[in-house]
């Protein structure tokens, strides 16, 4: 039925990971940095599911890793947004360059 080789799925997830990395490097807004991290986590999930399906079709462990990563990403996003809202309350900005209280 589907004859896409594993390597093409891996190319897709690699490209997605580095797109997320580009966003993390260039953006300075905390919300967009969080979104870039979500993209990177998703590309890792694609890898786990693809390896599970192509290399170990008799097992389910890759799926469980993907499920746990999704759960932890949800917890991480919630905590990050709480921190962002708190930062906005004290600094009136969510730019990481403005949060320099502990820099010097």
């Amino acid at each position, binding site marked *: *039925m*589907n*004859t*896409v*080789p*594993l*390597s*093409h799925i891996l*190319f*897709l997830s*690699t490209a*997605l990971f*580095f*797109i*997320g*990395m*580009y*966003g993390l*490097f*260039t*953006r300075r*807004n905390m*919300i*967009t940095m*969080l*979104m*870039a991290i*979500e*993209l990177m986590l*998703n590309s890792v*999930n694609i890898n786990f*599911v693809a390896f599970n*399906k*192509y*290399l170990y*079709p*008799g097992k*389910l*462990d890759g*799926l*469980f890793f993907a*499920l*746990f990563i*999704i*759960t*932890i*990403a*949800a*917890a*991480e*996003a*919630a*905590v990050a*947004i*709480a921190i*962002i*809202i708190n930062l906005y309350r*004290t600094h009136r900005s*969510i730019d990481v360059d403005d949060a320099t*209280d502990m820099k010097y």
Partner: protein
Amino acid sequence: MNISVILFYVIAVCILGAGLLAVTARQLFRSAIWLLFSLVGIAALYFWMQVEFIAAVQIIVYVGGIVVLIIFSIFLTEQSGAKMPSPPIKRKLPALLAVLFGILFTARLISQYFTSAADDHSFQASMQAIGRQMLSTTDFGFLLPFEAISFLLLAAMIGCIVIAMKPSQADIVSPQNAGE
């Protein structure tokens, strides 16, 4: 070149295009919407790989939870229509170089090692099997991580409430006083 293969490349182009726009869009709200499209595309990819449960979890948790949370926080913190400044070239260029080299090296590794792996269509991810192994206490069961992650979620929930709670008037220290 059958319909399934074409579908994969269409989904891949959607994911990458939406992802690229999500990290380059100048308006914060548009960026969040592109992220939403990218995550929906990844859920479609899971459907294409016939792991329907992961696809459903992806839609429920990411699209229904995280993106909505992000959009809420955009509305709480910024004017959603305001344009962000474009990153300076001094930050863009090193990031672009790092990303290009990373993609090249990883693509070379992939093309060296994973060319022969093909799908033999024996993969089955039924809901029953996932549920049984998730809550199994025997070998290869995932009950312990399941319980650990439930504690993690509880801790994250309480932590969020504590962090985002409005401090009472007595606790407020102005930044000038705190700096001394």
